[in-house]
């Protein structure tokens, strides 16, 4: 049976893993290659690396890091953060990433989704959407959550699927870093509208939150950062309890 995925997310700044609360206030969380290796051994199903470095050197260091990660780990991983063109996507994928996550660039240039999925297949193109509740709907924010776009998140997500995205990485900005649980209403609304897999992000604090994202929010995968980085929840324990709740998960047999 196809299992629900647990995805630790590593925010990368200047080659280190960092984690903030509500997109601000960064804490150091270690060496990304070491963390990636640890998560792989502990049973993570996939990994996401988001580069939040803002310097000119960024691209070169990111490509080098992607190559190191690809040489070390043997599970799929996604790379995102400031990727703007098909040639940049190609560079990241050729370095060994399986998917790229596109966020601000596709809001500016939605056709990039189509160009990228035509070139590399839709399975390699993740549309990352940072959504924030504004009044009675959710709005898309870009540039690390700092800039409103005026786009309705549900309409935008449907559009990314139609343009060729293979997966949605849906982050609730209201919940990100708060550990108060995923935005289940947002998740359920998105899952009603798309037929591609949806990764729930933003708000994981307990094992129950992760179960709720899947059972109530209908998410295909659950992404979290700090609860894993700081060992508040072990992946093994999370999967054991998810299985107990009747959720199909991948267990490692040794």
């Amino acid at each position, binding site marked *: 049976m196809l299992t629900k*995925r647990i995805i630790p997310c590593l925010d990368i700044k200047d080659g280190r893993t960092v984690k903030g609360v509500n997109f601000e206030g960064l804490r150091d969380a270690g060496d990304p290659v070491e963390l990636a290796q640890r998560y*792989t051994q502990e049973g993570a*199903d996939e990994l996401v690396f988001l580069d939040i470095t803002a310097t000119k050197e960024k691209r070169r260091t990111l490509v080098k890091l992607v190559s190191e990660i690809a040489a070390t780990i*043997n599970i799929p991983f996604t790379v995102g953060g400031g990727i703007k063109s098909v040639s940049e996507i190609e560079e990241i994928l050729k370095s*060994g990433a399986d998917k790229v996550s596109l966020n601000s660039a596709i809001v500016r240039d939605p056709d990039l989704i189509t160009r990228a999925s035509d070139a590399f*297949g839709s399975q*390699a193109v993740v549309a990352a959407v940072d959504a924030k509740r504004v009044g009675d709907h959710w709005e898309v924010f870009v540039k690390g959550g700092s800039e409103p776009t005026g786009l309705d998140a549900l309409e935008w997500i449907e559009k990314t699927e139609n343009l060729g995205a293979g997966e949605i990485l849906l982050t609730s900005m209201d919940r990100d870093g708060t550990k108060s649980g995923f935005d289940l209403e947002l998740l359920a609304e998105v899952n009603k509208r798309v*037929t591609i*897999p949806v990764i729930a992000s933003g708000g994981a604090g307990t094992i129950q939150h992760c179960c709720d994202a899947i059972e109530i929010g209908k998410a295909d*995968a659950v992404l979290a950062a700090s609860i894993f980085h700081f060992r508040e929840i072990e992946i093994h324990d999370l999967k054991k309890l998810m299985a107990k709740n009747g959720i199909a998960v991948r267990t490692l047999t040794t």
Partner: protein
Amino acid sequence: MIGIIKYQAGNLASVSNALERLGANFIISDNPDELEKADGIIFPGVGHAAAAMDDLRSRDLDIWLKNTKKPVLGICLGMQLLFESSEEGNSNTLGVIPGRLKKFDATKAKVPHMGWNQFEPLTNHKLITGINNKQFLYYVHGYYAPTNDYTLATCKYIKDFAAIVAKDNFLGVQFHPEKSGQVGSLLLQNFLDMVKEGKTVNS
């Protein structure tokens, strides 16, 4: 020595990293003469069937591949292209194995089939020594291969489809062993062992 086929649709970095971790010797080439010197061939693949076939044809890799007697392991799209045709871009593929690839019905479940799933072996085979129906492998595909006489193992998603195929010297796996943790490494090691022992794949 393993030859990895180099073409546009190849997940070359992942496959070569996996072989590197297993300590295998390999070359990456788009030259049929060079590839024919290898003891075994890995035919990777990610992306669109029609585009991949165009690229293979432009390098005369299609004709060589169909006719080689070397053990070949097709991965994901590489496995799919062993079949006759695909609904993806309505393309004619290599035709080593009978059958046409179909698109998953997106009204029944999420498409692509993406994530960790198992397979159900139909027969014993050296390629899956040590791997059983409890273990998980990483799949990502929107089109699926029909089951037929050449199906070695099936996987269930929306319906049963071919997870592993074998015909003569050709083997194919729908999942990505190079991305499937220890279980995937074991399958690749089994293929390397088969190549080393010079056993015909279909024995």
